[in-house]
């Protein structure tokens, strides 16, 4: 095309008089009587000569491999096309084949295009309007809101400059080198959105095994070397063999963990019969737990997800429902635990509108920190929309997200959202926020309090605080699908094990290993607990 452009530009010098010919109509073809309806020469060719070649009667190409037959077919193609056209016009079908250049301007087409255009604009606005975004945001996919890496973004945004440069380079190279024109041009490795891949670090045990093997081998190798050559083993063993103590950490340097739920079962068994709550006043729900309880097959849009969350939350029978979410901050004391679970990784994305599509399957997103960071603020925005009014009617929803708690109520037929200052909280973990909500509920709402969570940490913290409320506190554990979903009477457990042990439990739990502290390898929870009690 560079050559073509050069030819066109120098047309007056190389081919004097040709410009007039082109101007007079040699450049494009007009096949109709109307103005402004010229079409390129090759379109004309495709529509006339080649039209028959590409018809269903593909002729000789479909029936023979004979080279000469094909050549003959090609040579006679144009005359055959002329004959076919003539024949068609004889039976009055000639015009039917002629493409009308102005078909786009038919009223029906204009109407259809307009409707489609409006739909498009609406959709873009509902998802992510590129022109109203915050300036500092990186290049985002406007459908999923996922950001691209800097590399891709730079590559895409420099398309005009790079293209220009490559074009010019080619022209100068052709000038300097005689046979450059025939030589191949290197393909440009353009990085586009399609190149974006998701990197997800999985919590596997392979690295740990390799490391541990390495350490045992180390010991064996020392022993072997000591046997062959004379080594003062006493001196060697005066140094630590591993960079981290293996009594408290794993071979790859991460914290040692123990099965927390053992403590949970132990505490649960202290009471023989837990019974069932009678008058339920409040449900307090761990938001992330609720997300995991939901079916993994969720609809593809954020707005629909938001609605399923509210539906699932309102399925609880109580009038007041509290939902608390974790806040994800970095750096955080919980980073080690999150790294272990493989929650980190993947790329940034933004949740802007209800019509926006999820970038991945819901089930996969549950492991993504970014999703859990972005979703709760979106819920706060989305739940005050009027179409949820019939569902919220008669209920009271407290949604604790980030540092604030928002209350959703239906007043005078409209959903209102107001901030509850007394429930404002800067705790990043939902585990401790639950306690705040419990104390608030005990003051304001009569009836039993049920905490919907399945976490040992929550039970431990609850036992520590339960003496501060008069209402009976229950925990409803296990996800919806599991058969052993049951109630645990926290108040009764606290009474059984006594206030002293209750007060000591959080300290004991963190000492023997929780999310932030490493456990003692092969010591577990049960034996330390029996010693303590």
């Amino acid at each position, binding site marked *: 095309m560079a050559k073509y452009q050069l030819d066109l530009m120098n047309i007056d010098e190389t*081919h004097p008089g040709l410009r007039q*010919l082109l101007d007079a109509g040699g450049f494009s073809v007009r096949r109709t009587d109307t103005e402004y309806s010229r079409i390129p020469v090759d379109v004309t060719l495709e529509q006339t000569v080649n039209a028959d070649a590409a018809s269903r009667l593909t002729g000789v190409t479909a029936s023979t491999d004979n080279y000469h037959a094909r050549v003959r077919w090609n040579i006679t193609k144009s005359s055959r096309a002329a004959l076919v056209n003539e024949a068609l016009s004889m039976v009055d079908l000639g015009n039917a084949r002629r493409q009308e250049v102005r078909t786009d301007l038919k009223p029906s087409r204009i109407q259809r295009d307009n409707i489609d255009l409006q739909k*498009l*604009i609406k959709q873009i606005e509902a998802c992510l309007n590129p022109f109203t975004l915050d300036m500092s945001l990186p290049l985002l996919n406007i459908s999923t809101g996922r950001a691209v890496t800097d590399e891709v973004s730079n590559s895409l945004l420099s398309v005009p400059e790079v293209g220009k440069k490559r074009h010019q380079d080619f022209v100068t190279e052709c000038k300097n080198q005689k046979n450059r024109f025939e030589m191949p041009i290197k393909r440009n490795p353009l990085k586009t959105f399609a190149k974006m891949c998701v990197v997800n670090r999985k919590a596997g045990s392979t690295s740990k095994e390799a490391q541990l093997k390495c350490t045992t081998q180390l010991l064996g190798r020392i022993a072997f070397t000591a046997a062959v050559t004379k080594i003062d083993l006493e001196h060697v063993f005066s140094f630590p063999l591993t960079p981290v103590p293996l009594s408290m950490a794993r071979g790859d340097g991460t914290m040692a963990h123990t099965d927390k739920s053992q403590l949970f079962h132990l505490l649960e068994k202290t009471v023989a019969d837990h019974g069932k709550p009678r008058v339920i006043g409040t449900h307090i729900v761990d938001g992330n737990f609720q997300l995991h309880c939901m079916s993994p097959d969720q609809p593809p849009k954020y707005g629909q997800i938001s609605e399923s969350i509210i539906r699932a939350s309102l399925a609880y029978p109580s009038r007041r429902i509290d939902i608390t979410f974790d806040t994800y901050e970095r750096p955080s004391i919980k980073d080690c635990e999150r790294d272990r679970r493989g929650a980190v990784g993947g790329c940034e994305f933004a949740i802007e509108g209800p019509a926006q599509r999820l970038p991945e399957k819901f089930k996969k997103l549950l492991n993504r920190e970014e999703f859990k960071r972005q979703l709760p603020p979106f819920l706060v925005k989305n739940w005050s929309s009027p179409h949820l009014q019939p569902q919220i009617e008669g209920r009271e929803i407290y949604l604790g997200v980030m540092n604030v708690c928002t209350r959703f109520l239906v007043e005078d037929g409209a959903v209102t959202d107001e901030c509850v200052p007394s429930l404002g909280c800067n705790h990043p973990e939902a585990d401790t926020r639950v306690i705040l909500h419990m104390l608030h509920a005990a003051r304001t709402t009569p009836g039993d309090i049920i905490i919907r969570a399945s976490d040992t940490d929550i039970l431990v913290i609850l036992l520590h605080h339960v003496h501060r409320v008069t209402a009976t506190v229950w925990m409803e554990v296990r996800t919806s699908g599991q058969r052993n979903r049951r109630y645990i009477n926290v108040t009764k457990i606290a009474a059984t094990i006594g206030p002293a042990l209750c007060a000591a439990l959080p300290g004991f739990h963190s000492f023997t290993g929780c999310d932030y502290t490493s456990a003692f390898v092969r010591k577990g929870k049960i034996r330390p607990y029996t010693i303590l009690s």
Partner: protein
Amino acid sequence: MKCASECWQTYGLVTYDLDVAKIAHEIQISEQPEFDRLFIMFGVFHIFICFFRAIGRIIAESGGPAMLTDTDVLAPGSLRGFIECKSYNRCRRLHPMLALAFEILLYRRFITDYDQADELHNEMKNYASQFEKKKEVDDICDSPTFMEVFREYEKYKRKTEDGALGKTAQFWAMYMRYIQMYHFMQRAVRENNIILFISTLTTVTDSSSLLTGRIIRGGWPSTNLI
């Protein structure tokens, strides 16, 4: 050549698709001076296809095409054909439409930032009432207020292309500019306007040159698309 002399023309004009044109050029050079009076033109239709392919590659997976499928403007099964320009007619309809949607959104943003919007609004009302009587649009287009708005909007668009509204906006402004080039080229063909054609060809070649080298020189496997 025989044709040309039969028609009393000094030059023979031929149009090839890009792949054949390259070979034709080579023959022309190696067999000098026999074909000196032959002028080889590139089929604009094939240039369009190349251009759409280049644009398609740039916007693939960017969310824009997903908008088309989400709104049922484009069937999900046809998405690939649209991106790779396997269907010229579909591209010809949808690319300008998508660009127009972005253009309207950008204009809305521009109007909220534009400080003389009230004045413009009054003028619009004024002309609307006049239009009822006269049914002519010419003097509206010539009005200084409108000219000013158009100028300002063009400036605003340039700024967006330079990244004044963030990177996502910059990306789509770039897309809009490319589609505008397509419109220019289409217009050049329809009006037989060679000067306009030459000027737009530079940009088109620039963008296509990113895709593959073959396109710059003029190579694209020819297939029958219509």
